[in-house]
């Protein structure tokens, strides 16, 4: 079998950061030698969420904001599948904010790649949960009046074991982050900065390019306080890399019957197995 991932013609705008993210995803999966049928790409709705249509892989393109719950269901049903959630900032932090928080609490083994362009693309230019305060948009005419979400800081306070930030304009680095996130046993968040060439005139390619820098080689990603500082650093300079990493027991491994045995999907279904449960009612 082949580990090559076929691509389909996308409907993204020319110059969109999604192209680079897709390239990085393809490279990461191919380098990890995972076959397309072993991966499920789960998404919600938005431009980023169209990803399962543009790369040949098992895909679950669900509802807006609801990428995480089915991803959890898929992983619990078949722990052998590599489950990747790929969606935008509105999907992951806005409409799906509650699921984001609770996915971190569970620490289920999924990788979550958030295409964070700090704007709503598909619905044409409204503020997203990560749009900067004061930024004018097609809806917030006189500027955004609410604080942006700080996703990495939020993930850290919730106890996430893998917190990273990438940039669509730095593909080799993004491939590295994606591979590390996929390999990580537990919930892994990679917030990927990307320009929206049509709707975000503030956070442009060069805006990001001029600000992002790699975390230094001696950066200690086990230091949570340091990670928190880096998570909040988002102005003239924006660090990219693995901000925090910690080994933690995954949700599915906390259930002995899941941990010790084949995936639930491969277990037999014999009604007679349940007959003994009637003893309680006799």
């Amino acid at each position, binding site marked *: 079998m082949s580990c090559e991932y076929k691509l389909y013609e996308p409907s993204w705008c020319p110059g969109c950061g999604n192209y680079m993210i897709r390239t990085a995803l393809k490279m990461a999966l191919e380098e990890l030698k995972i076959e397309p*049928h072993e991966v499920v790409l789960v998404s919600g709705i938005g431009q980023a969420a169209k990803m399962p249509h543009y790369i040949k892989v098992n895909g679950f*393109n669900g509802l807006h904001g609801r990428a995480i719950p089915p991803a959890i269901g898929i992983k619990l*049903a078949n722990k052998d599948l590599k489950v990747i959630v790929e969606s935008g900032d509105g999907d992951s932090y806005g409409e799906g904010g509650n699921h984001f928080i609770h996915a971190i609490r569970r620490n289920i083994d999924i990788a979550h790649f958030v295409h964070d362009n700090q704007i709503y693309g598909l619905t044409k230019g409204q503020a997203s949960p990560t749009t900067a305060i004061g930024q004018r948009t097609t809806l917030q005419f006189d500027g955004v009046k609410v604080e942006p979400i700080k996703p990495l800081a939020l993930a850290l306070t919730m106890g996430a074991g893998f917190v990273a930030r990438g940039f669509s304009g730095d593909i080799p680095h993004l491939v590295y982050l994606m591979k590390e996130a996929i390999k990580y046993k537990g919930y892994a968040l990679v917030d990927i900065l990307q320009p929206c060439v049509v709707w975000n005139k503030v956070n442009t390619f060069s805006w990001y390019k001029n600000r992002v820098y790699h975390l230094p080689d001696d950066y200690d990603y086990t230091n949570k306080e340091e990670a928190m500082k880096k998570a909040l650093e988002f102005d003239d300079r924006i660090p990219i890399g693995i901000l925090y990493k910690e080994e933690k027991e995954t949700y599915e491994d906390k*259930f002995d*019957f899941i941990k010790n045995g084949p995936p*639930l999907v491969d277990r037999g279904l014999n009604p007679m197995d349940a007959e003994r449960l009637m003893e309680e*009612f*006799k």
Partner: protein
Amino acid sequence: MDFSILIGGAAGQGLDTSAQILEFILKRCGYNVFTYRDYMSRVRGGHNFTQIRFSDEEINSFTEKVDIVLALNEETILLHKDRVKEGGVVICDEDICHDDRVLSFPFREIIKKIKNQKVYNTIGLGVILKYFNIPMDIAEGVIKKLFKQRAFEDNLLALKEGYNLIDGKYELKLKEDRKIIINGNKALALGAIAAGCKFYCGYPMTPSTSILSYLSSISNEMGIMVDQVEDEIAALNMALGASYAGVRSMTGSSGGGFALMVEALSFAGIVEIPAVVVDAQRSGPATGLSTRTEQGDLRFVIHAGHGEFPRMVMALRNPEDAFYQTARAFNIADKYQIPVIILTDLYLADYTKTIEPFDFSKIKVERHISDGRNINGEYKRYEITDSGISPRLIPGKIPGQVVLADSHEHDEYGHITEDPDIRTKMSIKRMKKLELLKDEIQEPWLIGEEKPKILIVCWGSTYGAVKEAVERLMKEGYSIGALVFGDIWPFPTKRLMELAKTADKIVDIEQNLTGQLDSLIKEETPYSSDYKILKFNGRPFSGEEIYMRLKNEVLKLKV
């Protein structure tokens, strides 16, 4: 013989435990038992009561009148004294009341000896056991089943103390006990497990919570993943994810939680992933009466979801139905790749009843999953077929093949499309399954006469009370019968059309304000009801109540 015992008190006084002890003892004496629970939405205080009815004949409802009241507080006496039959008794602690209306005993003094406040009610149970001359060894067996060590010893002691307080009044003949005693929710959960459900998730909400907690209690043993989710939006989306990955999955809530699942229900429709969704109805709208029953969600669940897609709705009529129909729901969901909604309600969720043990060998698991052998070339998740049903592959099982599920309109491969022709074809393909379902659905049960002059129509949990009333009236010589709908969408019309032709009067009986079944009948047949008996105060119909209302309002006899 037919007796009813009411145990009343405040929330937190251990009514449930006491009722459970008593109903198991009566069952093991070989009697049919029916226990109805009436409780408030609070953890402590208020007034709750449980009615345990037992008989040597089949029983399907609670009674309005009772033989014995075990009052754990004074309020119980005030509220229920008028319901005590001639010759019946009220039993209580002498601290609560000690006049000649009641049989009072020094429970508190006895508790001082036992030194365990928790077994206070059990002394009263001992009195009741002696009243019926129930042998202590049967009681001991039940106490042993329900309690461990110290609790076992103290409860047994309390029973014996109570037993010595009076002389027996009634000689209960012992019979063989072969039954189980179970409520609707646990029967439903067992049906799901028998059908091979491997994934259940939900958010606690009365009266669906006991499905979640029961399944959780056997999760490790049975290898079923049970997850308490952050909200009901997550619940159905998660269940759909698990189902996509190939396991049978289910979620459940009450109407309010179901409302949050509606977007995902519509998603299930277009994505064609099987799902079983339980709506255990309670009184709405919104929070309504959170611990009270109602059949208010019928039209809601039939229409819930934006856009047009096929679904099946089945209403559960009794605990047997809860087991067998839930298992069947999984086969239908898998066969047609649709959401199947199971409607139950608080009354059926909670009442316990003795029934024949479930026959697990009758449960057939039919998955309708393709092994991929007949798939040539690239797999099309939404292949257009004559039946409208596309072959279903499980992701990860066949190297080289991927499964793409999509919430947009999509082409046969699952890719987004806005092509008008594909859209038309896909819409028709999906809706074809509703036509197939029409051959799948079961006609309503008929109880009473085969060609009745008075034809009752009802659905779901009112079955028991209606059955009792119909049988009483038949014995009195009336030409009466009832159609009790279980499968309710798509709406089965054959049996109704047949019987409506010869009936003089159609009477609709429902636990809601607007007569939702009747409106469905109007829509789907040329008929409608001539009279409606509706109840929506949150309390269930008893057989007696329906009997009286039929006599007074339909037969126009003053009784």
